[in-house]
């Protein structure tokens, strides 16, 4: 991604091109989260010999992949200046629906969650773009609504539907290539598509414009309603897909998933350099943000014998340190 952060892309005015050092510096600044990630991985590898093993890194990758898929949709939503709190519930709903529908075959197990979760996104998008209700409230209602729907499908959470081991979708969720799970490859592919969509299409330009200034975007003839509805549908679809694949991996539609996930997702996106006020951000930053959270979690486990309370303290401190460093890096750039 060459122009990952449109808003803060620093282009030196000097007639002579930037020096090599300046360019390297600029790169680090534009990808603050990635820089912190590299740093953290380096420290982790140095401190724990069990950290840089293939099995452990593969574990981080597969665990992060589901969060990443959801975060991809959230990135689009946040760049338009919106927010989607419903993703955690929709993620869980997608999983339960997939497990419920697998009785009609693996295709149904994929399509039903996509259809329902996409519809959730559609309704939310319409309420936000057409009726002009605040995204926070609409998606908060979505959070409750999706959880309620999930509970009613599963007898108040008492029934867990299972996905048989042999089902095609189970093999997609559980299989791996070169020791890395299929979902990881799928996530990578989705991110490439997402990056192209955001940086290299008119749709992506509209997304940035709306987040940068909704009034101006409207004056400039950006299709406001269509674009906004599209990002919420995308967010719903991706959360549903992630949920379905996660269910496939777990072989069951676990009902207790996804609570509080929305905050993790938002954190990942924002740590990745996307502005919550909209108008700036990048898909690559989100990858770094998601991986940062995954690595932090993994490192805390590596430390080992921490009590759960201390674990929380440490991960809060980690988070604070990471965002301070990341903010500092991107601020230096803004001042120049």
């Amino acid at each position, binding site marked *: 991604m060459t122009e990952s952060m449109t808003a803060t892309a620093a282009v030196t005015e000097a007639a002579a091109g930037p020096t090599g050092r300046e360019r390297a510096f600029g790169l680090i600044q534009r990808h603050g989260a990635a820089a912190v990630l590299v740093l953290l991985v380096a420290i982790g590898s140095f401190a724990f010999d069990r950290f840089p093993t293939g099995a452990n890194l593969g574990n981080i990758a597969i665990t992060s992949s589901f969060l990443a898929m959801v975060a991809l949709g959230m990135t689009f939503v946040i760049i338009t200046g919106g927010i989607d709190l419903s993703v955690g519930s929709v993620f869980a709903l997608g999983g339960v629906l997939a497990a419920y529908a697998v009785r009609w075959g693996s295709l149904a197990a994929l399509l039903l969650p996509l259809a329902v979760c996409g519809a959730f996104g559609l309704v939310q998008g319409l*309420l936000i773009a057409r009726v002009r209700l605040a995204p926070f*409230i609409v998606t908060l209602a979505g959070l409750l609504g999706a959880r309620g729907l999930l509970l009613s499908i599963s007898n108040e959470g008492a029934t867990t539907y299972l996905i048989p081991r042999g089902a095609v979708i189970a093999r997609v969720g559980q299989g791996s290539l070169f020791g890395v799970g299929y979902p990881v490859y799928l996530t990578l592919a989705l991110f490439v598509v997402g990056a192209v969509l955001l940086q290299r299409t008119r749709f992506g330009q509209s997304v940035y414009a709306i987040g940068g200034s909704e009034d101006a975007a409207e004056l400039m003839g950006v299709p406001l309603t269509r674009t906004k509805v599209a990002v919420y549908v995308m967010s719903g679809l991706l959360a549903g897909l992630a949920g379905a694949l996660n269910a496939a991996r777990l072989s069951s539609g676990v009902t207790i998933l996804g609570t509080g996930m929305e905050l993790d997702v938002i954190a990942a996106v924002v740590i990745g350099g996307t502005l919550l006020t909209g108008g700036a951000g990048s898909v690559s930053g989100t990858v770094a943000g998601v991986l940062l959270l995954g690595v932090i979690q993994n490192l805390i486990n590596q430390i080992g014998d921490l009590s759960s*309370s201390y674990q929380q*303290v440490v*991960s*809060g401190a980690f988070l604070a340190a990471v*965002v301070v460093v990341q903010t500092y890096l991107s601020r230096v750039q803004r001042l120049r």
Partner: protein
Amino acid sequence: MTTETAAVPASRFDRARLLAWLQDYGVYAAIAALILVNIAITPRFLTLENLRTQLVQVAPVVIVSFGMALVIGTEGVDLSVGSVMALTTALIPLYLGYGVVPAVVAGLLGGVAVGLVNGSLVAFVGVQPIVATLALFVGGRGIALVVAGGQLKDVHDQTLLDLGSSSLAGIPLPVVVAAVLTVVVMAVVRRTTFGRRLVAIGGNRTASELSGLPVRRVLLLVYVVSGLLAAVAGTLATARLQASDPSSLGLLMELSAITAVVVGGTPLNGGRVRVLGTVAGALLIQLVRATLIKHDLADSIAQMVQAVIILAAVYAARGAGRR
């Protein structure tokens, strides 16, 4: 028409203001509707006892929401409020041995400390509020549990318990505290330079800086106030629960508070704070929950109904929260 209003004397009750007032009507209308429905379908709804219960339960939410409303007024958000309540409830029993006052002060100081950290990250480092406060949202409860040794502790100090259960002229103390704070916060927002400045910063930060406002100081203070108010709520909740339960006290409080603020007509993108609207927003949510519980609806249905009612309420009040 108002065509010759080239220079209108500064009357405080003109039409624009009246209309802005009418836009608020949505939340109040929703509350009124819900009360009427309840009178019709809920047995024993119109008793004094029930009224007390609803007010006592909503009081901590209202108090936290005030802090949240101020933060949101600056175009920020404070996710750490629930953790602050946990921290407060964890600190109080530690110092009860010295007496109630030191214990409560310790609890409040915990909130102030969290506010200072949040505020510094936002104002001086320039971290986005949602992530700045997320750090203590995660870490704050951890600290609380560490402080409390992971323990739930019963509280026996009668003076402290009275904070939660005694009444003043028949009105439960937590409700009195919330009412007093309503007046205070309203005065702060309307009558102090701090109140004026914080909405200005939320409305246009660059312009505020250029107008010489102490932007950083105000931001810092706003988060401190939010932390302090959350700590007050935590103290009251501890007294009412008669126990210190840092693992679950204030869970999801940030969502309740933000919802109350937004349903009450304060826009999330700052520049405006509605104090009475916030109270109304909190009350509305409390009534919705109470109604659903009293009618013993299954969790699945209750959640969906709640979603619909929240949407309906903001639909009725829409315009108020719009730019």
